[in-house]
């Protein structure tokens, strides 16, 4: 498996670490229900999935990868910082 890091180019999967589904981060003050859904519940599709990987053995960038979980086809890679997952309002 190879992932094309937007900063480094195509690299072997072993340079990357997987976190899971790329979901918008709730506000820190959001309640247990919202955080429970964010941390625990998953749509878990057998098909295209947006997910977070870190190129930790490379440039360190967190990436939002779109990948088909049934075929492992890579459908897109973007820097996670541009992916709009960030906490929307308020300060920590």
């Amino acid at each position, binding site marked *: *498996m190879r992932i094309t890091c937007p900063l480094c180019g195509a690299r*072997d*999967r*072993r340079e990357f*670490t*997987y*976190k*899971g*589904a790329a979901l918008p981060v709730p506000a820190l003050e959001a309640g*247990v*229900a919202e955080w*429970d859904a964010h*941390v*625990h*519940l*998953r*749509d*878990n*599709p*057998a098909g295209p*999935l947006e*997910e977070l*990987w870190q190129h930790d053995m490379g440039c360190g960038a967190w990436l939002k990868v779109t*990948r088909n*979980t*049934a*075929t*492992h086809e890579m459908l897109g890679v973007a820097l996670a910082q541009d992916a709009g997952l960030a906490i929307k309002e308020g300060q920590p």
Partner: protein
Amino acid sequence: MGISDRFSGWRVLKEGLTGNKGWTPHWRDPEPKRDYDVVIVGGGGHGLATAYYLAKEHGLRNIAVLEKGYLGGGNVGRNTTIVRANYYLPGNSEFYSHSLKLWEGMEQDLNYNAMMSQRGILNVFHNDGQRDAAVRRANSIINQGDDAEILYRDQLKTLVPFLNYDNNRFPIMGALLQRRAGTARHDAVAWGFARGADQFGVDLIQNCEVTGIDVEGGKVVGVQTARGPIRAKKVALAAAGRSSQVAAMAGLTLPIESHVLQAFVTEGLKPVIDHVITFAEGHLYISQSDKGGLVFGSYLDFYSSYAARGNLPMQEYTMEAIAAMVPAVTKARLLRSWGGIMDMTPDGSPIIDHTPIEGLYLNAGWCYGGFKATPASGDCFAHLIATDRPHAAATRFKLDRFRSGYGLMDEEGTGAQHNLH
């Protein structure tokens, strides 16, 4: 079951002498009926065991098991065959203890030799911290009423002299031994439960994918299948590897991510490893099948997958762990690698529970642990379905524990990231 259908050494002799013409199907292939008391979705080990215990322990007969492909085609047929009861957290302890006891009587109960081999499992530890964790675990196991021993280096060396004791990146300090643990012939477990359930009149229906779950007024009334609609008073989901998709048919989102776990077998070799051996460094587990193949695995591939196949990094990592820990077997050649789809939960422990929909029951989230759980999972799930109360050995496998924070069972302490268990 008719006495003439029983399996025995005498029967094998008799059939052998008469050209083996008298063997009959191990199970029927019935057409689905329009109506069942219980429909079980998933004809894997857990689904088949559930059907068997529903019939045997609770007297139900009007049961169907619906299987998308062939019986036992999921993880029960693609694991590393390890059976053990060496968990340490409440919830898991009593459940796997119950399971091991069922394993010990299963073959006689089912009249099917699943080659349950209580050859013992050794969990090797390498340093003080791992030793303390092994001691804690051993004490938990003993407090539960099961067997556990701590062996130190010299005792271990007598038992398994071929490990790398002398020049190991992580020296071997000792091991936790559970003698009653071991292996079983995985396919035979599925077939044994299938045959047992069939003999109680359970309809095992292969090539029958469930395409929808019918819910009316918050209550389940049946399922849609590739072979037409089937009505059911109760629907029980035991479709590990596809749990999320099946549950989604009823509008449920589960705390599950699907991941691929690879497993490996080598060419057949004369006996060299007599136990199941696992290593705290490397997460390697290895044993030798009765056919002579070394059977082993280690971590998940760590990315979500439904592809039932893995990639090279984890294959190589697993082989590297063997090269480090068991260099006496590295001339063995890898014959076959494969992948199974694991229902990974946020705490690495399973779910056997009601769902918010009346009459819909969930058995899912077995992570790495599904095979050894097979009989108890069937027994406890059957109990829940039949009585609407959890079995005493499975009171903690709650669907809502992640939200409530009560009774989390994170044996590895890796936290609520699905792929880290």
